[in-house]
């Protein structure tokens, strides 16, 4: 159990997918201008991440490893992710039009989201078992949502602040992200101090 807690905490804060591991930066900068879109993107990412990580983990350990074709990992993973996103989009459209309206537009963007493929690969390289993989993926997704939401709140304020012209848009967003990154990584020191 403490193993799971350690993984969860690490995934959420210490190894935060955006601020520490640099995955998912494109939607982070691109979609975080409004709170509602950040929320939508965050949930869509969690959803797709969980499904794709589970499927790719199973495929890797039960097919690729067994037939000794692990070098096909990248190609299989990205195709699975692309196919899953397509299926989820179609499924949502039919089953829940309201949900589709809320999340649907973000789905195509997610295919090339490095966070999705990145987490799938990380689950393998960290050598997690199925349970650890689920915990890790969930909290990575929650960490993504958390950061992108906080960031969107800041950006809404930034839009109305007197920012020098050259810094408007991406540059000031990145600098604010830097401050967030410092806060997140220093949490590690807090944990060390406590334990």
């Amino acid at each position, binding site marked *: 159990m403490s193993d799971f807690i350690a993984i969860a905490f690490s995934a959420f804060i210490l190894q935060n997918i955006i601020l520490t591991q640099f995955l998912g930066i494109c939607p982070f900068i691109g979609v975080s201008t409004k709170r509602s879109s950040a929320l939508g993107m965050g949930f869509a990412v969690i959803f797709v991440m969980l499904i794709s990580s589970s499927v790719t983990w199973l495929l890797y350990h039960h097919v690729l490893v067994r037939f000794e074709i692990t070098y096909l990992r990248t190609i299989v993973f990205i195709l699975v992710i692309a196919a899953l996103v397509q299926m989820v989009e179609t499924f949502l459209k039919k089953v829940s039009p309201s949900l589709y309206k809320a999340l649907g537009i973000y789905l195509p963007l997610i295919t090339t989201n*490095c966070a999705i*493929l990145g987490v799938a690969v990380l689950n393998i390289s960290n050598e997690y078992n199925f349970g650890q993989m689920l915990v890790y993926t969930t909290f990575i997704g929650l960490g993504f949502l958390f950061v992108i939401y906080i960031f969107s709140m800041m950006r809404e304020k930034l839009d109305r602040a007197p920012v020098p012209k050259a*810094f408007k848009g991406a540059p000031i967003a*990145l600098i604010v992200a*830097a401050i967030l990154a410092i806060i997140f*990584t220093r949490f590690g020191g807090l944990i060390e101090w406590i334990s």
Partner: protein
Amino acid sequence: MTKKENFLKGIFKENPLFVALLGMCPSLAVTTSVENALGMTIAVIFVLVLSNFIISLIMSNEKLAKLVRPVRIPVYIVVIATLVTVVEMLMHAYLISLYKSLGIFIPLIVVNCIILGRAEAFAADNKPVDSIIDGLGMAVGFGVAIVIVSVFREFLGTGLLTIWGDLQINLNFIFDFLRISPVGMFTQPAGAFISLGFILAIIAAVAAKRQEKQEKQAKEVKANV
């Protein structure tokens, strides 16, 4: 568009990182040292040039193009993923320390928007030779961009510039001269964000000044007419 223009646009006017803001994930992660940035550049050149070439070949054939068009995104993905896996294996075998440094970002070249973007925007509709030049220009442009960021970060963070393996340039004397020490933060995540943010701001400022100048000149021409 001449061949030269085709090549240079990837470096200046349409620089994938500085202008189109694509490929930010690897730009933040691999710019901790010039060596890593150069290594990533080599991998991206390999993948982008070959993927543009192959996809252009496929789409140049009339019949094949018609068949591929409905499934063209999966086709692009398969081609790019294959090339990336080849690069991964070659790096693991012949450049193992670079492989370990770049880590997860080698397979992530697959989802680097630059490569899929050029395939869809250029290679699919242009001739193979032009596509190669476009790919080369874009990849070199990306490389120039991440090397600039990495020079910034590595110099400010450690005072050294690691070009390749043991080939290092020690610029610590500059710090000694100014009586300060390197700021370690620049090699960490926060420093990555700040570096890229400042560099993008500088570029935006330069571009704005240039536009101001052009507008002023245009006004003067109008006034004189």
